[in-house]
């Protein structure tokens, strides 16, 4: 029987134990945005650094000069550098994220250290599986959320026809919250699909007719377990997911608001640090969600496939041969009563042979014996 653990705590534990995964993701998030904001910075520096008119932005935050800066971004030799290149970091980050997420989930599930090489290597292995899952996510979300979005539009029209003011805002907000809740369930489900996909990749598919056993790359095989786990642990998983989502967004809103109130100061680093803190916390809660989902999946693993029997070599009959199909492994009483205390996922590698006595055909160094 598997040990039941609190996915909220265990998820945090997994996240913190594999902290480099989070740190690398945040580093890419920051570095890419920083890299692609350099042209923007150069352009506005050329515009503002030596202008007395820009001083109103130094000891204050006058929206007039900012609006004018926006207009002049479209001028000059590096025309609209900010606009043309500034957002390039977003798709690039998305691509990097495609690599980092599978690697992170792999590390969460296998206790492998979250080195960048491991993350990227696993990301490469799982890239197309995750790409397919994302496509599936978009399709299903479109099918589910599309009609809901349409209904929300109708609801908003109905509200607009009959209610105004704060009540109308709240009524429309209620519709949007419903939409958000459904979207969160979809996201949670596909998060679980991703976790199970990685788990499945740790299993070897049985060899068939001379082909070698290879990792299971079938995404569809993760859909069922994810659905069953979500259905049977919905009351546990969804609140945790929602809570962490809200905490992440609240962190961003809170730090953004606080840093906004520092805009008029003649220094930038406090707003920078606060904004980065909020963004980091948002990412942390997302990784925490991944950890919680991993914990859930580890407690509800996909059964390992039964490998076909390995037949003995013809003509050799050795009843003590550990590979003999008729040989029964003797379990100690402890092995019978205690479930595995480590990760419940079985190691895909076959168990090492265990002999009752040293194989006489193999040399064993025994230091107590005098050399012959």
């Amino acid at each position, binding site marked *: 029987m598997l040990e039941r653990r609190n996915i909220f705590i265990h998820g945090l534990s997994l996240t913190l134990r594999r902290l480099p995964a989070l740190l690398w993701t945040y580093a890419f998030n920051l570095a890419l945005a920083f890299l692609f904001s350099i042209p923007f910075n150069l352009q*506005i520096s050329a515009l503002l650094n030596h202008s007395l008119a820009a001083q109103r932005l130094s000891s204050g935050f*006058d929206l007039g000069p900012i609006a004018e800066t926006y207009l002049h971004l479209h001028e000059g030799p590096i025309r609209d550098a*900010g606009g043309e290149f500034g957002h390039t970091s977003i798709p690039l980050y998305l691509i990097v994220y495609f690599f980092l997420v599978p690697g992170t989930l792999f590390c969460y599930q296998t206790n492998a250290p979250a080195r960048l090489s491991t993350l990227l290597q696993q990301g490469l292995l799982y890239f197309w599986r995750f790409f397919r899952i994302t496509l599936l996510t978009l399709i299903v979300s479109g099918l589910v959320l599309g009609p809901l979005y349409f209904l929300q539009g109708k609801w908003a029209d109905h509200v607009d026809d009959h209610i105004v003011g704060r009540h109308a805002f709240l009524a429309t907000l209620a519709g949007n919250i419903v939409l958000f809740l459904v979207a969160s369930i979809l996201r949670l489900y596909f998060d679980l699909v991703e976790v199970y996909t990685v788990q499945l990749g740790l299993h070897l598919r049985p060899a068939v007719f001379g082909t070698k056993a290879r990792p299971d790359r079938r995404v569809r095989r993760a859909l069922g377990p994810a659905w069953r786990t979500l259905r049977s642990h919905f009351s546990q998983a969804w609140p945790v997911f929602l809570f962490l989502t809200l905490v992440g967004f609240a962190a961003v809103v809170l730090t953004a608001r606080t840093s*906004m109130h520092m805009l008029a100061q003649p220094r930038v680093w406090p707003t920078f640090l606060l904004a980065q803190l909020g963004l980091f916390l948002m990412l942390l809660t997302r990784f925490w969600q991944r950890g919680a989902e991993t914990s859930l999946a580890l407690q509800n693993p996909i059964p390992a496939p039964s490998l076909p029997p390995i037949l003995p070599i013809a003509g050799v009959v050795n009843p003590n041969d550990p590979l003999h199909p008729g040989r029964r492994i003797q379990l100690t009483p402890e092995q019978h009563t205690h479930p595995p205390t480590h990760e419940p996922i079985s190691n895909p590698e076959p168990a090492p042979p265990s002999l009752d006595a040293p194989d006489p055909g193999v040399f064993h160094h025994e230091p107590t014996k005098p050399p012959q």
Partner: protein
Amino acid sequence: MLRTRLITAAAILLTSPVLEAQSGIATNSPNGAPLSTRVVAYTIDARLDTDKKYLDATETVTYKNLTGQPLATVPFHLYLNAFRPGSTFTRETHFNGGVRDSEADNDYPAEKLGSITISHIDADGYGDLTSAMHFIAPDDGNAQDHTVTEITLPHPLAPNDSIIFHLAFQDQFPLSVARNGYKRDFIMGGQWYPKPGVFWHGAWNCHQYHSTTEFFSDFATFNVTLTLPRRYVVGASGVPTGELVNANGTPNGTRTLSFYAEDVGDFAWAASPNFTVTDGVYLSSLGPVKVHVLALAAHPKAGPRYLDIARKSLAFFEQHYGPYPYKLLTVIDPEPGSEIGGMEYPTLFTGDTSWYDPSYITELTIEHEFGHQYWYGMVATNEFEDAWLDEGINSYTEVRALGAILGRDTSVFNRSYANASDYELQRFEYLSQPDYDPVTRWAFKFRDSDSYGRITYGKSATLLATLEGLIGRDTLDEAMRTYFLRYRFTHPTTEDFLRTIEEVAIKNGRAGVTGGTVDSSTHYTEQNQYHVVFETDKASHAASATDAAGLMKLHPELDSLFNSPDHQSVFPVSSLRPFFDQAVYGTQVLDYAIDGIYSNPVQWWLPEPKDKKQIQYLSTVYLRRKGDFILPVTAEIVFDDGTRLREHWNGVDRWTKFTYTRNAKVISVEIDPDHVVLLDANLFNNSYTIDRNPIPARKLSNIWLSFNQLVAQLVAWVV
């Protein structure tokens, strides 16, 4: 506070009967004399079906022919017919954008269909004229446009005679598209009755309703009765004169409200069962003005906010331009999401707010629409042809008033961490599309609705703010006051406005006379563009003009020009004309820049001495004219020994340079150091300082960086 209120109330109670005896019914006119030349008298009896948004009315229009010539035809505006697919209004809105609803979709919703139908018209002494009525489209010949109908009279109306029309008409109000119609159970009766055109400059001026145009009408009196369900609260132009509860004995019965308005060009009303009333009084020099705010119950803060800014605006305008002469000012809070917010009618206008507004947009809207009581309501310019004279001047006075009331730099948004101002808002609007059209272009001939809005509002306000800097705030205030007092209750033109400014500027010595004269009958139109000889050198000496007395001595011919009875229509051309020619009549863009500053040792081949104060530097400052707008320029040069010099450049050539040999380096140069030339398209390149300050760029870069990170993280939720 309470004491002040008691004194105010007592003053009203004591003064009202006295003033009532002397003033008009709806105005605080001294001696009760008409304030305007009342060309038309309307009597309208209307019944409103609030469920069907349908109005059935009879109308009597008494039109007095003051044109000095016989009239064979009379055109009428039928504005509500604009709300149908084939109309010019909808066509322009669909293809070029509208100032309100875009109508960009390829279907026209049935609920947005509006119409006004004259089912019968006759005139005393002229018989039934229903069959003599036909639609005309004087602007574009669009046969499907039914916003103007013309009635051919069987015999001409003689000069100084009156004609009394009797009409029966029906309105179908649309779901609001622009300025009128309904939203939920709120109904705005704007441009809702047949209204004659204006005989102006020797011809009927009765344009079709266009996507970007507003209105133009003669001054008139209105006697209006409106019958509608009792639960509706109504605000209307003029003053209420009676209420009759109709004896049908049911809770859903009706009542008939009566209103009277005088010396106004239009009459509008608004009705909603959701209005709450907030009243206040402003004591003007002519008498008390009641401010009657009808705000939606869903906007509990709107009533006090509207009232406060309306009273402050009344005070500002009276102090700077002249008194508000009407007894009542009604402020309507329209339903949110309607296309009715922020619209002016005589003695009534609509605000625009929401249940949560942390900015001053609510105040800005009220101030702007109140300003239209002056620039449109009383100074009744032609909004079809001279839109800048109402919207532009009004945007400028809006900047002035809000700056005085809410702070120059904080008049739109005022928080400890950020601020925004109205003059910057207008400037931004102008700069985002600065050079497609001149401000004087007819409203429906602009490139599109965007250009119309940005030029008519933004550029006009910015050019007048620049003019304020050039001739001085006091002089422009005086000119505006003169313009208002001289032209209220008339229909002035662009030249009337500009000449008033020139006259006051010359009198105050803030502009010179360049010698030419212009006949005041010259009217700028699209077909007849007014030309003034562009004399840049003379313009550059505007600041050195003498005062009025000295001016007359220098130019004795001016005295005869100003005072000769035979030449009362002849005006001197001032040194402001080049500015007007470019800023008002032209599309030139103004942009002067610092092109470079250099300070090098004169004896550059010698080793640098220890005492750097001993080094003599050759400093050169280059200024450049990047735009095609020419304006004299002042530049302030600052040296590192603290010396400040101001240099003047006539700004004609593409560039100029100033060189100095001093024991100090130039550390900064600034064009327009007093920050008066707001028309300059790029204020950043107006100055250059040796000291680099990276904080502004870092602030914006930090926001940019964080924003991109946030978006990236949000996008990553798809994985």
